[in-house]
Every structure is written in C-alpha cells, then in structure tokens.
C-alpha cells in the first residue's frame, strides 16, 4: 500500500489545483461559488487521473539518467495530450453548465501547467522515495556486514580461553608478577593481531602462523609442561595466501579437545609444504579416544571447512582422521 501513497498524493494535489483554477474561471462568468465548484468537479476529476497517469512517464524517464531533449519531447507530448483531453472534457461538460469558462488558449495553458505540476510532484516524490530506500539498504548492508563479522569473530575464539587466561594472569600476579605482566602482554598482542587480520580477505601463511604461535604461547603458560609445539614450514609455503584465522580455531581444537584431554599432555604439530600447486597444511595432536566429544565434529572444524569451500569454489579441502590416539587435520589450498 505504501507504494501507492505517493502517486495518489500527487494526483490529489493536481485534482485540487485544477478544481480551484476551474472554479475561479467559472465565477468570472457570474455563477455562484458552490455552482462553479460543482461544475468544475467533473473535469478536475479527469485531471486527477491524468495527474496519476503522469507517474508512468516519470518512472520511465528517471530524472538523473535521462537527457533533457528526450525528457522535454516526452513530457511535452504528454502535456499536449493532457491538455487536449482537458479541452475535450470541458466540451463534453458544456451541456451541463452555462457556457464555456474561458478561451481555448487559456484552457490549453492551464492544462500544460497542471501537467507540469503533476510531473514536478512525481519527480519530487520519486526522488524522496529513492533516497530513503538507498539509506535503508545502506544501513541494512552495514548491519549485515557487522553481524557477519561479529559472528565470525565469536566463532573463531572461544571466550573460555580468555577467562582461563585471565585466571592464569590473576594467579601469576600473586607469585610471579613479571610473568603475569608478560602473560597480559601476550594476550593483548594476540587479540590485537586477531582484530587486525580478521577483516582482511587473505593473509600470508607466515602471518597466520605468527598469530597461532602467540595463541600457543598463551596456552603454554596455562598448561606448562603438558603442552609442546612443533612448527615446520617448508620453503615457499610461508608466502602462500590463506583466509585469516583459518588455523587458529583448529589450534584451539587441538589444545582443548586434544592435549587437554590427555593426563600427560602432548605435542601439537603443524607442518606446511607446497606440492603440485597446492599448499598442504597438517595439524596433528594427541587425543583421548574416550573423551567426551569423541565422534562429533567440532564447530571449529565445520567453520574452517565452510570457509575453505567458500574461497576456492570447492578446490580447497579439509580432511580429518583419527588413528591410535592421534587426531590429524589435512588441509589443501590452491594458489
């Protein structure tokens, strides 16, 4: 219904204007005002319709993208047709009233003015509508983008990682203040880097490994001897581009569901190499086969899988396997 409000408003304005004009013309003929108004009603109603119809040429010839000559031609023609209809209406109306209200040139002039009024109103209303819609959609896109970003960030980093790390900082404050300071610094560096690379489309693998190393350094403070890390990046693999925060959630899985599930802890291994035009990344960690979540795929993995398929049109892959207490994630990314 809203889309009809503007054209109806314009049509009503045109009808009202023509009613006033016609009434004034009749009064000059020596008729009483109510009589004149009544007589003007019929042709004015017609102009109301013409005013409504004027919306279509306005829609077809948008103000911003149509050249002047074409616009003048179309609207001039339409104004002529409108004026003719207006004069015909008056002639048809004549038997019901006491004589013509004015000469043909006055009527034609009035018709053109009425049409011009209708076109002006329509253009004005269309312009208001367009700018409002543009504003709305811009706002909506902004919100969608923000939402997606937040969702991604939320999914990437487990808040309990932050709580547990802060607990470690609080603990260190009592016994080893210098270590507490260092842990706070590690946390700040990690989160700052996450926020910085998060919005980027791709980052180098070397950069992602740097981020992941900071994460693992924090976890090492928490887990102590139980967590060991081995990183092997072959020549050429570090320059390869990957989506930011691709490996980070996988590391979280490796620590939370892997090393943390083992009484004696274990080693998280990351290896990257390039072969046959593909970047291969392997993440391996020990995992208790009896752990609570055994058998179900973790959110971090689903997330990484989804992002990989989104960036490469199905050419990138992520495979997981579990044998003899070791959990392995294999990723392949095309150039």
């Amino acid at each position: 219904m809203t889309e009809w409000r503007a054209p109806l408003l314009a049509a009503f304005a045109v009808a009202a204007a023509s009613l006033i004009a016609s009434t004034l013309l009749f009064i000059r003929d020596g008729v009483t005002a109510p009589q004149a108004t009544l007589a003007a009603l019929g042709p004015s109603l017609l102009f109301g319709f013409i005013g409504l119809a004027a919306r279509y040429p306005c829609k077809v010839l948008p103000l911003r993208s149509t050249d002047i000559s074409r616009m003048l031609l179309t609207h001039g023609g339409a104004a002529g047709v409108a004026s003719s209809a207006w004069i015909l209406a008056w002639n048809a109306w004549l038997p019901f009233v006491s004589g013509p209200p004015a000469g043909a040139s006055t009527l034609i002039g009035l018709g053109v003015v009425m049409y011009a009024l209708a076109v002006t109103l329509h253009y004005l209303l269309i312009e208001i509508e367009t700018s409002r819609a543009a504003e709305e959609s811009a706002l909506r896109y902004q919100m969608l983008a923000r939402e997606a970003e937040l969702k991604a960030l939320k999914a990437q980093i487990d808040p309990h990682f932050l709580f547990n790390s802060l607990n470690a900082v609080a603990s260190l404050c009592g016994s080893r203040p210098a270590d507490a300071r260092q842990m706070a610094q590690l946390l700040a560096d990690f989160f700052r880097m996450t926020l910085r690379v998060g919005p980027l489309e791709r980052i180098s693998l070397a950069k992602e490994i740097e981020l992941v190393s900071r994460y693992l350094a924090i976890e090492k403070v928490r887990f102590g001897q139980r967590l060991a890390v081995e990183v092997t990046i072959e020549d050429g693999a570090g320059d390869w581009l990957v989506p930011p925060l691709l490996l980070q959630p996988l590391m979280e899985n490796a620590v939370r569901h892997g090393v943390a599930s083992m009484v004696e802890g274990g080693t998280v291994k990351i290896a990257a190499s390039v072969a046959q035009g593909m970047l291969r990344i392997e993440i391996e960690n020990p995992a208790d086969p009896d752990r609570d979540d055994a058998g179900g795929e973790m959110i971090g993995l689903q997330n990484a899988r989804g992002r990989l398929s989104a960036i490469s049109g199905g050419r990138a892959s992520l495979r997981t396997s579990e044998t003899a207490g070791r959990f392995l994630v294999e990723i392949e990314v095309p150039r």
Partner: protein
Amino acid sequence: MIRVVIVDDEPLARDVVREFLSADEEFEIVAECANGFEAVKSVSTHDPDLIFLDIQMPKLDGFEVLSLLDKTPTVVFVTAHDEFALRAFEVNAIDYLLKPFSEARFGEVLRRVKAQAGRRAEPATLASALRARPLQRIVMRGEDGTIEVVPASRVDYVEADDDRILIASAGRKLAKQQTIGELASELDPDRFVRIHRSYLLNIDRIEKLELYAKDSRIAILRDGTRLPVSRAGYTRLKELL
C-alpha cells in the same frame, strides 16, 4: 581444621586457590590433583572435608569424579564455564566459582563453608542429578580402586545383577553399583532400550529378532549374544526401530 583437596588440571589455577587459602589458618591443604583419576584416589585416601573441583579435566570431568566417590566432601566447583552452574547445584555443590575470581569472592566461599561445617551432602542425591544431555560415558570404580571409562557408544548391553549392573563392552563385563533403571534414564533413550526387566540394549548391536515362544522373543546381537526380549520390551523396541 578443615581439610582440603584442590583439583584442577592447570597448575596456575591450583596456585591461586592455594594462595587464597593460605590466608585462613582454619584450612589445611592435604592434596592437590591434576586430573580426575588422581582426584578420586586422593579423596578416597585423605577423606577431606572440602574439595575445590574443576569441571573440564582429562579422563574424568568434575561430575564424573563426584559420581565415583563413596563419601562426598563439601564441593566447590571452580570453572571458567558458567553453563554448568545448574548441574553443579543439583549435585549439592556449596558454591560455584567462576574463573577468574576475586579474593573477596573466595572469602565468601570460605565463610559459607565454615557455616556449613559438619554437614555433608548425601551421596545418594548426587547420582540422581538431572543431566542437560544424555550420558556420553559411563564411569565406574573397580574393587581394587581402578577407574574404568566406557563411552556410551561402545556399550553393547547392560545386565542387571542383584544390586549392581554389568556393562558389556567388546567382550568384557564391567560391574557398577547402580540400578539398571537409573542408568537407563541417564543414557540416550533413542539408542538404549530396556528390552527386558534385566536388560538394557544398545540398538546398534541388534542383528535380528527371533520368536522364541508365544509373546517372547530373543534378540541376537552382532557378536552372537542372545538376550531375552519381554513383551513390553518388544513394544518399546518396535517403537524405536
């Protein structure tokens, strides 16, 4: 003197509890444990009055530790996860500390513990705690003190045997002090069916059903085991299959 055991797999998390406790002379730390197995053993050995218990730990989580204790001390859960709070109070925990916590908040816990000193939670209330989701692992303690963990997916069937149950998994039968009805209510009802008054069956293990006599059937499992199916059990089984 209130005797305390601290259980957490992170050394730094134990440190802070120890530090805050050292301010109050009424508390004595008798043991510190880094995982659920140690916790069960340590509580049995030391019989403490109070236990600070982490929830997410290797091998056994905090709730599983409690389910394995014969005598339950006063329990304070210490965790970064707030989603377990409801369950914690259902197992009669006296308090629930969210990491990180302030010394003031910790002091509040100690005051509450002192006010309750001498009163202990009944172990019976622990077992009946409601669970937010079906049991994923069954934990039990052998007569020699060893702890067994069997993932629910690896249970073939459960057999009632007097006041205990026998859990059949990959050819072994492990005993646990629990009624078959109680375990049935904890396990995933879409997977485990009470096919008989004395048998709870993992439906993934069924090979076929055979008519044995009028109104009585026999379930034959993949490994060849034959279990009786009562009429009511057959009705329940049919609903699920």
